Protein backbone atom coordinates (compact mmCIF):
# COMPACT_ATOMS: atom_id res chain seq x y z
CA UNK A 1 0.00 0.00 0.00
CA UNK A 2 1.24 3.48 -0.77
CA UNK A 3 2.66 5.45 2.14
CA UNK A 4 1.75 9.12 1.84
CA UNK A 5 4.26 11.01 3.96
CA UNK A 6 3.49 14.43 5.37
CA UNK A 7 7.03 15.75 5.15
CA UNK A 8 10.20 15.03 3.23
CA UNK A 9 11.85 14.13 6.55
CA UNK A 10 9.22 11.49 7.22
CA UNK A 11 9.55 10.19 3.66
CA UNK A 12 13.29 9.48 3.93
CA UNK A 13 13.32 8.43 7.59
CA UNK A 14 13.91 4.79 6.69
CA UNK A 15 17.16 5.36 4.80
CA UNK A 16 19.80 3.53 6.79
CA UNK A 17 23.56 3.82 7.07
CA UNK A 18 25.32 1.95 4.28
CA UNK A 19 22.32 2.09 1.94
CA UNK A 20 22.61 2.36 -1.84
CA UNK A 21 20.49 5.30 -2.94
CA UNK A 22 19.50 6.18 -6.48
CA UNK A 23 18.91 9.90 -6.85
CA UNK A 24 16.98 11.11 -9.88
CA UNK A 25 17.41 14.25 -11.90
CA UNK A 26 19.54 15.62 -14.69
CA UNK A 27 20.62 19.12 -13.85
CA UNK A 28 17.78 20.68 -11.88
CA UNK A 29 15.17 18.90 -13.98
CA UNK A 30 13.70 16.07 -11.94
CA UNK A 31 16.08 16.60 -9.06
CA UNK A 32 14.32 15.71 -5.77
CA UNK A 33 15.96 18.58 -3.94
CA UNK A 34 13.75 18.51 -0.85
CA UNK A 35 14.23 14.76 -0.41
CA UNK A 36 18.00 15.19 -0.69
CA UNK A 37 17.89 17.98 1.89
CA UNK A 38 15.89 15.69 4.18
CA UNK A 39 18.44 12.92 3.65
CA UNK A 40 21.13 15.37 4.73
CA UNK A 41 19.12 16.15 7.87
CA UNK A 42 18.31 12.54 8.74
CA UNK A 43 21.96 11.70 9.21
CA UNK A 44 22.26 8.45 7.23
CA UNK A 45 25.88 7.93 6.29
CA UNK A 46 28.25 5.56 4.51
CA UNK A 47 25.96 5.81 1.49
CA UNK A 48 26.51 4.64 -2.05
CA UNK A 49 24.84 7.19 -4.28
CA UNK A 50 23.88 6.77 -7.93
CA UNK A 51 23.22 9.98 -9.85
CA UNK A 52 24.18 11.35 -13.22
CA UNK A 53 26.49 13.90 -11.59
CA UNK A 54 28.37 14.31 -8.33
CA UNK A 55 26.69 17.36 -6.90
CA UNK A 56 26.90 20.99 -7.82
CA UNK A 57 27.62 24.17 -5.87
CA UNK A 58 26.58 24.20 -2.21
CA UNK A 59 23.31 22.34 -2.36
CA UNK A 60 21.78 18.88 -2.30
CA UNK A 61 24.07 16.03 -3.22
CA UNK A 62 27.11 18.34 -3.06
CA UNK A 63 26.43 18.91 0.64
CA UNK A 64 26.02 15.18 1.29
CA UNK A 65 29.48 14.76 -0.22
CA UNK A 66 30.87 17.74 1.70
CA UNK A 67 29.66 16.13 4.93
CA UNK A 68 31.42 12.86 3.89
CA UNK A 69 28.16 10.91 4.02
CA UNK A 70 28.80 9.35 0.61
CA UNK A 71 31.43 6.63 0.57
CA UNK A 72 30.96 5.86 -3.11
CA UNK A 73 29.34 7.55 -6.06
CA UNK A 74 28.34 5.89 -9.31
CA UNK A 75 27.83 8.53 -11.97
CA UNK A 76 28.63 9.56 -15.54
CA UNK A 77 29.77 13.15 -15.14
CA UNK A 78 31.31 14.13 -11.79
CA UNK A 79 33.47 16.98 -13.10
CA UNK A 80 31.66 20.26 -13.40
CA UNK A 81 32.70 23.85 -12.89
CA UNK A 82 30.92 23.93 -9.54
CA UNK A 83 31.51 20.38 -8.30
CA UNK A 84 34.13 21.58 -5.80
CA UNK A 85 32.93 19.44 -2.90
CA UNK A 86 33.26 16.29 -4.96
CA UNK A 87 36.62 17.44 -6.31
CA UNK A 88 37.96 17.97 -2.80
CA UNK A 89 36.66 14.68 -1.43
CA UNK A 90 37.94 12.80 -4.48
CA UNK A 91 41.41 14.29 -4.39
CA UNK A 92 41.58 13.55 -0.66
CA UNK A 93 40.74 9.93 -1.42
CA UNK A 94 37.63 10.23 0.72
CA UNK A 95 35.09 9.17 -1.89
CA UNK A 96 35.15 6.26 -4.28
CA UNK A 97 34.13 6.98 -7.87
CA UNK A 98 32.68 4.49 -10.32
CA UNK A 99 32.50 6.29 -13.65
CA UNK A 100 29.92 4.87 -16.06
CA UNK A 101 28.94 6.11 -19.52
CA UNK A 102 25.51 7.68 -19.18
CA UNK A 103 23.69 5.20 -21.38
CA UNK A 104 25.27 2.25 -19.61
CA UNK A 105 24.30 3.84 -16.29
CA UNK A 106 20.70 4.10 -17.46
CA UNK A 107 20.66 0.58 -18.88
CA UNK A 108 22.24 -0.91 -15.74
CA UNK A 109 19.55 0.74 -13.62
CA UNK A 110 16.90 -0.47 -16.05
CA UNK A 111 18.35 -4.01 -15.90
CA UNK A 112 18.05 -4.06 -12.12
CA UNK A 113 14.37 -3.20 -12.25
CA UNK A 114 13.72 -5.62 -15.10
CA UNK A 115 15.44 -8.64 -13.51
CA UNK A 116 18.18 -8.87 -16.14
CA UNK A 117 21.35 -10.43 -14.71
CA UNK A 118 23.76 -8.67 -17.05
CA UNK A 119 24.00 -7.50 -20.65
CA UNK A 120 26.40 -6.72 -23.46
CA UNK A 121 26.60 -3.10 -24.59
CA UNK A 122 28.70 -1.59 -27.39
CA UNK A 123 29.18 1.62 -25.41
CA UNK A 124 32.64 1.91 -23.93
CA UNK A 125 34.12 -0.99 -25.88
CA UNK A 126 37.82 -0.44 -26.51
CA UNK A 127 38.02 2.40 -23.97
CA UNK A 128 39.58 2.85 -20.53
CA UNK A 129 36.16 2.38 -18.97
CA UNK A 130 35.99 -1.18 -20.25
CA UNK A 131 39.41 -2.16 -18.87
CA UNK A 132 39.16 -5.35 -16.85
CA UNK A 133 35.63 -6.01 -18.03
CA UNK A 134 34.44 -9.03 -19.94
CA UNK A 135 34.05 -8.33 -23.65
CA UNK A 136 32.50 -10.27 -26.50
CA UNK A 137 32.39 -9.92 -30.25
CA UNK A 138 28.82 -10.15 -31.52
CA UNK A 139 28.14 -9.99 -35.25
CA UNK A 140 31.55 -8.44 -35.84
CA UNK A 141 31.20 -5.71 -33.26
CA UNK A 142 32.77 -5.37 -29.81
CA UNK A 143 30.60 -5.36 -26.71
CA UNK A 144 31.27 -4.94 -22.98
CA UNK A 145 29.51 -6.88 -20.23
CA UNK A 146 27.70 -4.68 -17.73
CA UNK A 147 25.77 -5.62 -14.61
CA UNK A 148 22.61 -4.29 -12.98
CA UNK A 149 22.72 -1.54 -10.35
CA UNK A 150 20.37 -2.63 -7.59
CA UNK A 151 19.55 -0.21 -4.82
CA UNK A 152 17.87 0.00 -1.47
CA UNK A 153 16.20 3.33 -2.11
CA UNK A 154 15.34 5.66 -4.95
CA UNK A 155 14.70 9.34 -4.33
CA UNK A 156 12.95 10.83 -7.33
CA UNK A 157 10.69 13.69 -8.35
CA UNK A 158 7.53 13.42 -10.42
CA UNK A 159 4.78 15.84 -11.32
CA UNK A 160 1.76 13.98 -9.92
CA UNK A 161 0.95 10.80 -8.07
CA UNK A 162 -2.42 9.24 -7.48
CA UNK A 163 -3.16 7.46 -4.22
CA UNK A 164 -1.96 4.14 -5.58
CA UNK A 165 1.40 5.67 -6.51
CA UNK A 166 0.93 5.88 -10.26
CA UNK A 167 3.20 8.68 -11.51
CA UNK A 168 3.35 11.15 -14.35
CA UNK A 169 6.34 13.40 -14.99
CA UNK A 170 6.92 16.72 -16.72
CA UNK A 171 9.05 17.23 -19.85
CA UNK A 172 12.76 16.37 -19.51
CA UNK A 173 12.34 16.08 -15.73
CA UNK A 174 11.26 12.49 -16.43
CA UNK A 175 14.88 11.39 -17.12
CA UNK A 176 16.05 8.79 -14.58
CA UNK A 177 12.81 8.70 -12.52
CA UNK A 178 10.99 5.73 -14.09
CA UNK A 179 14.01 3.41 -14.20
CA UNK A 180 15.18 4.32 -10.71
CA UNK A 181 11.70 3.74 -9.26
CA UNK A 182 11.81 0.22 -10.72
CA UNK A 183 15.37 -0.58 -9.59
CA UNK A 184 15.08 0.25 -5.89
CA UNK A 185 13.61 -1.85 -3.10
CA UNK A 186 11.88 1.28 -1.80
CA UNK A 187 11.02 4.25 -3.99
CA UNK A 188 10.42 7.61 -2.38
CA UNK A 189 8.87 10.22 -4.62
CA UNK A 190 8.30 13.93 -4.22
CA UNK A 191 5.45 15.25 -6.31
CA UNK A 192 3.82 18.61 -6.86
CA UNK A 193 0.35 17.14 -6.51
CA UNK A 194 -1.37 14.03 -5.17
CA UNK A 195 -4.65 13.26 -6.90
CA UNK A 196 -7.38 10.73 -6.16
CA UNK A 197 -6.99 7.27 -7.61
CA UNK A 198 -8.83 7.22 -10.92
CA UNK A 199 -7.87 10.76 -11.86
CA UNK A 200 -4.85 9.75 -13.93
CA UNK A 201 -5.61 8.33 -17.35
CA UNK A 202 -4.29 4.72 -17.33
CA UNK A 203 -2.89 5.30 -20.84
CA UNK A 204 -0.56 8.09 -19.71
CA UNK A 205 0.76 6.69 -16.43
CA UNK A 206 4.54 6.49 -16.85
CA UNK A 207 5.49 4.75 -13.60
CA UNK A 208 2.88 2.25 -12.36
CA UNK A 209 2.21 2.37 -8.63
CA UNK A 210 3.75 -1.07 -8.14
CA UNK A 211 7.14 0.68 -8.21
CA UNK A 212 6.30 3.38 -5.67
CA UNK A 213 6.39 3.01 -1.90
CA UNK A 214 6.24 6.54 -0.49
CA UNK A 215 5.08 9.85 -1.92
CA UNK A 216 5.24 13.27 -0.38
CA UNK A 217 3.76 16.45 -1.74
CA UNK A 218 6.24 19.30 -2.00
CA UNK A 219 4.81 22.55 -3.26
CA UNK A 220 6.37 23.61 -6.57
CA UNK A 221 8.65 26.60 -6.18
CA UNK A 222 7.38 29.95 -7.41
CA UNK A 223 8.38 30.73 -11.00
CA UNK A 224 10.92 33.35 -9.96
CA UNK A 225 12.71 30.81 -7.77
CA UNK A 226 12.66 28.28 -10.57
CA UNK A 227 14.21 30.76 -12.96
CA UNK A 228 16.85 31.67 -10.44
CA UNK A 229 17.83 28.02 -10.10
CA UNK A 230 18.10 27.66 -13.85
CA UNK A 231 20.29 30.71 -14.19
CA UNK A 232 22.85 29.32 -11.75
Amino acid sequence: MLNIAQTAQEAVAGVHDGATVLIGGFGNAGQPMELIDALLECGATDLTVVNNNAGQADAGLALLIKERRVKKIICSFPRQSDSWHFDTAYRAGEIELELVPQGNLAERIRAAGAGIGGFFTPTGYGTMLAEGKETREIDGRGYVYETPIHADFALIKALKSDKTGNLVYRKTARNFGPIMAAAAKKSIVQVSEIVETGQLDPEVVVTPGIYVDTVVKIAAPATAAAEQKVSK
Partner: protein
Amino acid sequence: MSEKIGRDELAQLVAKDIKPGSFVNLGIGQPTLVSNYLTPEQGITLHTENGMLGMGPVAQGDEIDEDLINAGKIPVTELPGASYFHHADSFAIMRGGHLDVCVLGAFQVSATGDLANWHTGAPDAIPAVGGAMDLATGAKDVYVMMSLFTKDGQSKLVPECTYPVTGVNCVTRIYTNEAVFLITKDGVRVRETFGTTIEELQAKMEVKLLPAE
Protein backbone atom coordinates in the same frame (compact mmCIF):
# COMPACT_ATOMS: atom_id res chain seq x y z
CA MET B 1 36.13 26.41 -51.76
CA SER B 2 39.42 28.26 -51.71
CA GLU B 3 38.77 30.62 -48.77
CA LYS B 4 39.49 29.92 -45.11
CA ILE B 5 36.36 28.98 -43.20
CA GLY B 6 35.06 30.15 -39.80
CA ARG B 7 33.19 28.19 -37.13
CA ASP B 8 29.83 29.46 -38.24
CA GLU B 9 30.45 28.78 -41.91
CA LEU B 10 31.58 25.29 -40.97
CA ALA B 11 28.40 24.76 -38.96
CA GLN B 12 26.44 25.93 -41.97
CA LEU B 13 28.23 23.40 -44.15
CA VAL B 14 27.48 20.57 -41.73
CA ALA B 15 23.84 21.63 -41.58
CA LYS B 16 23.59 21.60 -45.36
CA ASP B 17 25.11 18.11 -45.52
CA ILE B 18 22.52 16.54 -43.22
CA LYS B 19 19.88 14.74 -45.25
CA PRO B 20 16.29 15.95 -45.06
CA GLY B 21 14.19 14.05 -42.52
CA SER B 22 17.19 12.99 -40.43
CA PHE B 23 17.17 12.44 -36.68
CA VAL B 24 20.20 14.19 -35.26
CA ASN B 25 22.01 14.67 -31.96
CA LEU B 26 24.28 17.68 -31.66
CA GLY B 27 26.99 17.45 -29.01
CA ILE B 28 27.86 20.21 -26.58
CA GLY B 29 30.06 23.08 -27.82
CA GLN B 30 30.84 23.74 -31.47
CA PRO B 31 28.32 21.16 -32.80
CA THR B 32 25.50 23.12 -31.16
CA LEU B 33 26.09 25.87 -33.73
CA VAL B 34 24.77 23.53 -36.43
CA SER B 35 21.22 23.98 -35.13
CA ASN B 36 21.34 27.65 -36.19
CA TYR B 37 21.59 26.63 -39.82
CA LEU B 38 19.07 23.79 -40.10
CA THR B 39 16.12 24.91 -42.21
CA PRO B 40 12.47 23.99 -41.64
CA GLU B 41 12.43 22.53 -45.16
CA GLN B 42 14.98 19.94 -44.10
CA GLY B 43 12.57 18.54 -41.51
CA ILE B 44 15.41 17.57 -39.17
CA THR B 45 14.38 16.26 -35.73
CA LEU B 46 16.80 16.96 -32.90
CA HIS B 47 17.33 14.46 -30.10
CA THR B 48 18.65 15.35 -26.70
CA GLU B 49 19.88 12.40 -24.64
CA ASN B 50 18.20 13.58 -21.46
CA GLY B 51 14.92 12.39 -22.89
CA MET B 52 13.43 14.25 -25.82
CA LEU B 53 12.93 14.22 -29.57
CA GLY B 54 11.77 17.37 -31.30
CA MET B 55 13.92 19.80 -29.36
CA GLY B 56 13.57 23.42 -30.43
CA PRO B 57 15.89 26.43 -30.09
CA VAL B 58 17.31 27.70 -26.81
CA ALA B 59 14.57 29.15 -24.59
CA GLN B 60 14.39 32.92 -24.20
CA GLY B 61 12.74 34.97 -21.45
CA ASP B 62 9.36 33.56 -20.48
CA GLU B 63 10.00 30.35 -22.38
CA ILE B 64 12.59 29.28 -19.79
CA ASP B 65 11.34 26.21 -17.96
CA GLU B 66 13.48 24.36 -15.42
CA ASP B 67 11.96 21.05 -16.56
CA LEU B 68 12.88 21.53 -20.22
CA ILE B 69 16.62 21.48 -20.76
CA ASN B 70 19.08 19.92 -23.16
CA ALA B 71 22.05 17.66 -22.45
CA GLY B 72 24.16 20.75 -21.77
CA LYS B 73 21.58 21.73 -19.12
CA ILE B 74 20.57 24.80 -21.14
CA PRO B 75 16.84 25.62 -21.18
CA VAL B 76 15.39 24.80 -24.58
CA THR B 77 12.00 24.71 -26.26
CA GLU B 78 9.68 22.05 -27.64
CA LEU B 79 8.62 21.82 -31.30
CA PRO B 80 5.36 20.34 -32.63
CA GLY B 81 5.82 16.57 -32.92
CA ALA B 82 8.06 16.39 -29.86
CA SER B 83 8.04 13.47 -27.45
CA TYR B 84 9.51 12.76 -24.01
CA PHE B 85 10.89 9.48 -22.68
CA HIS B 86 13.03 8.23 -19.82
CA HIS B 87 16.79 7.90 -19.85
CA ALA B 88 16.93 4.19 -20.71
CA ASP B 89 14.58 4.72 -23.65
CA SER B 90 16.57 7.76 -24.74
CA PHE B 91 19.88 5.93 -24.80
CA ALA B 92 18.18 2.98 -26.48
CA ILE B 93 17.49 5.36 -29.36
CA MET B 94 21.21 6.12 -29.53
CA ARG B 95 22.67 2.68 -28.82
CA GLY B 96 20.11 1.02 -31.06
CA GLY B 97 21.44 2.94 -34.08
CA HIS B 98 18.30 4.95 -34.71
CA LEU B 99 19.91 8.37 -34.99
CA ASP B 100 21.05 9.22 -38.49
CA VAL B 101 23.76 11.65 -37.49
CA CYS B 102 25.53 12.70 -34.37
CA VAL B 103 27.87 15.70 -34.49
CA LEU B 104 30.62 15.82 -31.87
CA GLY B 105 33.68 17.80 -30.92
CA ALA B 106 37.04 16.02 -30.57
CA PHE B 107 40.55 16.21 -29.16
CA GLN B 108 41.72 13.71 -31.77
CA VAL B 109 40.39 11.41 -34.46
CA SER B 110 42.40 8.49 -35.82
CA ALA B 111 42.72 7.51 -39.45
CA THR B 112 40.40 4.57 -38.77
CA GLY B 113 37.76 6.71 -37.11
CA ASP B 114 38.65 6.22 -33.45
CA LEU B 115 37.43 9.21 -31.49
CA ALA B 116 39.06 10.85 -28.47
CA ASN B 117 36.97 13.56 -26.87
CA TRP B 118 36.32 12.72 -23.23
CA HIS B 119 39.61 12.66 -21.34
CA THR B 120 42.88 14.50 -21.75
CA GLY B 121 44.72 11.60 -20.17
CA ALA B 122 46.31 13.93 -17.62
CA PRO B 123 47.09 11.82 -14.55
CA ASP B 124 45.49 14.27 -12.08
CA ALA B 125 42.34 14.90 -14.12
CA ILE B 126 39.01 13.94 -12.64
CA PRO B 127 37.44 11.83 -15.37
CA ALA B 128 33.92 12.54 -16.61
CA VAL B 129 32.29 10.90 -19.58
CA GLY B 130 28.59 11.77 -19.66
CA GLY B 131 26.95 10.56 -22.85
CA ALA B 132 30.07 10.90 -25.02
CA MET B 133 30.70 7.17 -25.45
CA ASP B 134 27.04 6.44 -26.13
CA LEU B 135 26.93 9.14 -28.79
CA ALA B 136 30.13 7.87 -30.38
CA THR B 137 28.89 4.30 -30.69
CA GLY B 138 25.25 4.98 -31.38
CA ALA B 139 24.57 7.01 -34.50
CA LYS B 140 24.67 5.71 -38.08
CA ASP B 141 27.06 8.54 -38.94
CA VAL B 142 29.31 10.30 -36.48
CA TYR B 143 30.55 13.66 -37.73
CA VAL B 144 33.30 15.44 -35.87
CA MET B 145 33.78 19.21 -35.87
CA MET B 146 37.16 20.47 -34.74
CA SER B 147 40.08 22.69 -35.67
CA LEU B 148 42.51 20.54 -37.64
CA PHE B 149 45.64 21.66 -35.79
CA THR B 150 46.40 22.31 -32.16
CA LYS B 151 47.75 25.73 -31.19
CA ASP B 152 51.28 24.39 -31.55
CA GLY B 153 50.58 23.02 -35.01
CA GLN B 154 50.01 19.33 -34.28
CA SER B 155 47.41 17.60 -36.43
CA LYS B 156 44.40 16.32 -34.47
CA LEU B 157 43.73 13.80 -37.24
CA VAL B 158 46.31 11.19 -36.29
CA PRO B 159 47.45 7.68 -37.23
CA GLU B 160 46.44 6.52 -33.75
CA CYS B 161 44.90 8.45 -30.89
CA THR B 162 47.29 9.29 -28.06
CA TYR B 163 44.44 10.50 -25.85
CA PRO B 164 42.13 7.89 -24.27
CA VAL B 165 39.51 6.96 -26.85
CA THR B 166 35.78 7.50 -26.61
CA GLY B 167 34.91 4.94 -29.25
CA VAL B 168 36.62 2.87 -31.91
CA ASN B 169 35.97 3.02 -35.67
CA CYS B 170 33.02 5.29 -35.13
CA VAL B 171 33.76 8.60 -36.87
CA THR B 172 32.71 8.74 -40.52
CA ARG B 173 33.44 12.36 -41.37
CA ILE B 174 35.54 15.22 -39.97
CA TYR B 175 34.70 18.87 -40.53
CA THR B 176 37.64 21.16 -39.82
CA ASN B 177 38.58 24.76 -40.55
CA GLU B 178 41.06 23.52 -43.19
CA ALA B 179 39.23 20.67 -44.89
CA VAL B 180 36.48 18.07 -44.74
CA PHE B 181 37.76 14.49 -44.38
CA LEU B 182 35.89 11.26 -45.03
CA ILE B 183 36.91 8.10 -43.16
CA THR B 184 36.55 5.35 -45.74
CA LYS B 185 37.58 1.72 -46.07
CA ASP B 186 40.42 2.85 -48.34
CA GLY B 187 41.65 5.41 -45.84
CA VAL B 188 41.16 9.11 -45.20
CA ARG B 189 39.83 11.04 -48.19
CA VAL B 190 39.85 14.82 -48.46
CA ARG B 191 36.44 15.90 -49.70
CA GLU B 192 37.29 19.59 -49.94
CA THR B 193 39.82 22.07 -48.62
CA PHE B 194 39.41 25.65 -47.44
CA GLY B 195 42.13 28.09 -48.48
CA THR B 196 44.69 25.33 -48.68
CA THR B 197 45.50 22.26 -50.77
CA ILE B 198 45.72 18.58 -50.06
CA GLU B 199 49.50 18.78 -50.69
CA GLU B 200 49.94 21.57 -48.17
CA LEU B 201 47.93 19.63 -45.60
CA GLN B 202 49.80 16.40 -46.28
CA ALA B 203 53.07 18.17 -45.59
CA LYS B 204 51.85 18.92 -42.05
CA MET B 205 50.19 15.58 -41.27
CA GLU B 206 51.32 12.03 -40.68
CA VAL B 207 48.03 10.47 -41.82
CA LYS B 208 48.11 9.64 -45.51
CA LEU B 209 45.51 11.68 -47.36
CA LEU B 210 43.63 10.42 -50.40
CA PRO B 211 42.00 12.78 -52.90
CA ALA B 212 38.22 13.01 -53.23
CA GLU B 213 36.74 10.29 -55.40
